[in-house]
């Protein structure tokens, strides 16, 4: 009974991408990073779904949208376990997982209050120095922002 309900809560799509295993608390960060609030395609969100791995997870179904690796990997900072299902004709034709990229532009805020990026109108840039427990080295002030202090801009 419960299973059926979960499946029904997010309707199927004909063509597009399903992003699964997003931590529920980061759903809105993912929406923001991918700019989903600015597109006209049909998008279905589900959140607070039960997940053994994540506690509560969120899922996004995007009709008619396919991502380039570089674009989708940007969400790895907030959804490192996210899985992608590429859908064609209601069938999953490809599965993949997001990968934390080597460099990050925009997205995150530098944790250092004395960093120029927190004073001047400039896009943040980071080198990813650790991918497991994400650690970002600021291109400007050279300080490390770790997972715990990660704030999405």
């Amino acid at each position, binding site marked *: 009974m419960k299973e059926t309900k979960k499946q029904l809560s997010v309707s199927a799509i004909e063509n597009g991408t399903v992003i699964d295993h997003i931590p529920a608390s980061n759903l809105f960060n993912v929406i923001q990073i991918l700019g989903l609030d600015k597109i006209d395609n049909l998008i279905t969100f589900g959140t607070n779904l039960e997940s053994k791995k994540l506690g509560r997870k969120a899922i996004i179904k995007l009709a008619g949208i396919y991502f380039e690796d570089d674009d989708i990997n940007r969400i790895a900072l907030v959804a490192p376990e996210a899985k992608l299902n590429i859908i064609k004709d209601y069938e999953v034709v490809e599965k993949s997982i997001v990968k934390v990229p080597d460099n990050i532009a925009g997205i995150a805020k530098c944790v250092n209050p*004395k960093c*120029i*990026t927190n*004073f*001047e109108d400039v896009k943040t840039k980071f080198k990813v120095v650790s991918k497991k427990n994400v650690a970002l080295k600021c291109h*400007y*002030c050279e300080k490390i922002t770790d997972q715990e202090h990660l704030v999405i801009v």
Partner: protein
Amino acid sequence: MNNKSLVSIDDISTEEMVSILDLAKEFEKDPGQNLLGNKVIATLFFEPSTRTRLSFESAISRLGGKIVGFTDASSSSVTKGESLYDTIRTVNNYSDLIVMRHPIEGSARLASEISDVPIVNAGDGANQHPTQTMLDLYSIRKTQGSLDNLNIFLVGDLKYGRTVHSLLMAMSRWNTTFNFISPEELKMPVEYKLYLDKLGLKYYEHSDFSDIINEADIIYMTRVQKERFSDPMEYEKVKNVYVLRNSMLSNTKENMRVLHPLPRVNEIHTDVDANKKSYYFEQALNGVFTRQAILTRLLGLK
């Protein structure tokens, strides 16, 4: 170097470093060449730093260059709220190279991305001050004959000291052994120790001066500032512990030299000044030659 600017010491390859040190040696022999005769150099000091500014201006003047700029932000448009972007875009029309000091970390990197002319970082907050590191390397090489296999003692505020961190990072390229002498509250941060571990370099930590300094090739002193302590009582306890006196130097090695980025307060007793092992004033003079080398290299003149 990144985009012909000097922003961070980590941007310079070991080869380039050595080449700049060699060039500085040429300037030491002949500091008065008219290489900057038709050049205008901007010195933008968004916060005052008299010593660094005078050293740069001396380096430029001895090479015949003209200087424009300001000596602290209160005398500039910055206090009227002008962005760094606008200041740099404007000043790079008036000059062939910009020397800048700024209290905000990463400001020099940003300036180097905005500017058409080379930027020399003369200190960006607690982050980088690469010309200081270069003059420290020059002083060490000059007094020791080489940078290889030295035993370097870093003393004082090793937690917040930008100078000692950059020096550690730079010297770790030459199989250096490090000794750290500092109060508990101001110990070398763990990230630098991990870095040395990774390179397999030896380091030792001490809470006080002892006979161990007799093994030193270089004793690099820094100021222990009261405002760094969360508990003022802690400062009172340690403030006289990290003072170097002449009597402590009697059994140190012949080649040993005492360095300090200056200004000092009381951490080197004035009775050390007459000892030939004191080197901090010569070190400051070396800053002029090193900066001459960096400026002419970035301008493609040398």
